[in-house]
């Protein structure tokens, strides 16, 4: 029997899409599956075991790198979100004014330059500053991460602001709210989901960064991704699968929260 005609159907699209989802999840699935492998080889599954997780948790380098990653991501995401929120307030809901396009270009600049170029630039720049000041702490990494997190935090905040009904603030002003009170009681609560989404995006982007961190870090400043990159280049152990699985879990957790926050359209 012929299938009922549907205006939305395009021949073969569903098959490609299903294959696409399958291909997207197969390698990740393999990674997760074999992180529970009792044996060492990917060729055989020798029973379920948590030994590689245990090994990862006992590895001081992994622990140090994870803590460093979280430290950098927390500070960078908070600073980037605050800066991005202020910038979004400054660049939306206005008649075009002198310098507005320049601001857009500036804020989005880290998105438009290949990461490797920014990484090289920061390597050169910070190398000089390290010589001048003698300081070689985490500050460089935090500054670099903050800079490339700003456009990501800016994106959802700006989108939220632009969709916000301008008359709401007019209404607040009409009802005797001073500009500060209108911001405090109307704009900010309505903007909050955008700020939260921006923060999470920035946090994940910072946590995931490899290239810029790889170039900017001083000796002994490995983050989890740069530690993993180093390990992968040397020798691959199933321990890496376990670390990847944990990292993956974190990402999925953040995406889930992000989805829930974005869905609750107040």
């Amino acid at each position, binding site marked *: 029997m012929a299938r009922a005609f549907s205006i939305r159907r395009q*021949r073969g699209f569903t098959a490609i899409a299903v294959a696409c989802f399958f291909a997207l999840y197969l390698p*990740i699935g393999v990674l997760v599956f074999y992180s529970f492998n009792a044996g060492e080889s990917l060729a055989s599954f020798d029973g379920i075991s948590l030994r590689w997780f245990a090994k990862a948790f006992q590895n001081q380098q992994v622990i140090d790198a994870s803590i460093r990653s979280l430290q950098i991501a927390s500070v960078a995401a908070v600073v980037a979100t605050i800066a991005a929120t202020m910038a979004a307030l400054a660049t939306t809901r206005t008649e075009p004014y*002198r310098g507005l396009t320049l601001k857009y270009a500036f804020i989005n600049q*880290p998105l438009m330059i290949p990461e490797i170029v920014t990484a090289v630039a920061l390597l050169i720049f910070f190398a000089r500053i390290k010589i001048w000041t003698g300081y070689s702490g985490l500050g460089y990494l935090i500054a670099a991460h903050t800079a490339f997190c700003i456009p990501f935090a800016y994106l959802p905040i700006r989108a939220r602001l632009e969709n916000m009904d301008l008359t709401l603030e007019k209404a607040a002003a009409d009802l005797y709210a001073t500009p500060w009170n209108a911001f405090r009681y109307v704009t900010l609560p309505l903007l909050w989901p955008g700020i939260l989404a921006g923060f999470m995006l920035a946090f994940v982007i910072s946590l995931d960064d*490899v290239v810029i961190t790889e170039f900017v870090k001083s000796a002994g400043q490995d983050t989890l991704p740069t530690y993993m990159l180093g390990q992968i280049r040397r020798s691959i152990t199933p321990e890496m699968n376990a670390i990847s699985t944990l990292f993956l879990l974190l990402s999925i957790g953040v995406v889930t929260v992000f989805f829930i926050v974005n869905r609750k359209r107040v």
Partner: protein
Amino acid sequence: MTDAAGTIEAEQSKDIRKRWLLSLPALLIILLAATGPLLIVLLYSFLAPGPYGDVQWAPSLEGWIGVFLEKDIFDETLSLASAHISIFMRSVGLSLVTTILTLLVGFPTAYFIATRPEKTRELWLFLITIPFWTNLLIRTFAILEVIRNEGLINGLLIKTGLIAKPIQMLFTDGAILTGMVYVYLPLMVLPLYASMEKLDFRLVEAGYDLYATPFRVLRKIIIPLVKPGIIAGSILVFIPALGAYVTPSILGGGKNMMLGNLIELQFGQGRNWPLGSALSITLMLIVMVALLVYVRNAGSQGSRHG
């Protein structure tokens, strides 16, 4: 001028001053830790290399000459740097093929998501967002685990006795391509979905009503309407692919380099910072050209609709 008119002027200039003040932190951070250093790269590309990396403060075009030409070690004659040129070609070629492949797979996928019922659409979107948010390194590593000599495919094939020796898949252009398509696919699907979500299916109905076949509806109605998404997705894939560093360095190894790895080499073992800087600027210029094409296309698209 009445006092009210004076108020307008004062309010306006106060508003703009406030807006500059508000955007100052973001602008300063980006200037200090992103844009500013780029200017130093430009400067370094015109200096002479130092013996152990870094630069000597002497103007030199060596870096720029080195982008396309190489000096013979013995008689100092210049010839085309075939290694560099092949890396350029490979980078552009692989990035283009990656863009095309992600588009071919991503378009039906985005369409599939966009045509799901309201309830399940969110789930599919969620499924495409997870890889998008997952660390690129981990996703590349996942591919590595599947294709390396001791990896899943070779392991299973050997175990089942189909082959005796592992098939060399890692460290080939094919490996890089597989990895890049895999890694950048979500970047293509999301903007495509964003423009398909807004697609007015009454226009598709009108197409069918006027005797178009499904294929012609796709070609004459759907594709022109989601063109902004196609362009955005292509740019979003092409630019990071061109500057890719992690994926080719893990899956391509030392021989199958891309531009990103070549640049890294100059700052590492190569110790030729001016050449590395010149290569970086070249990469940036290619990206700028791609972006310009995008802006022009997006601009004409906007004016046609507006």
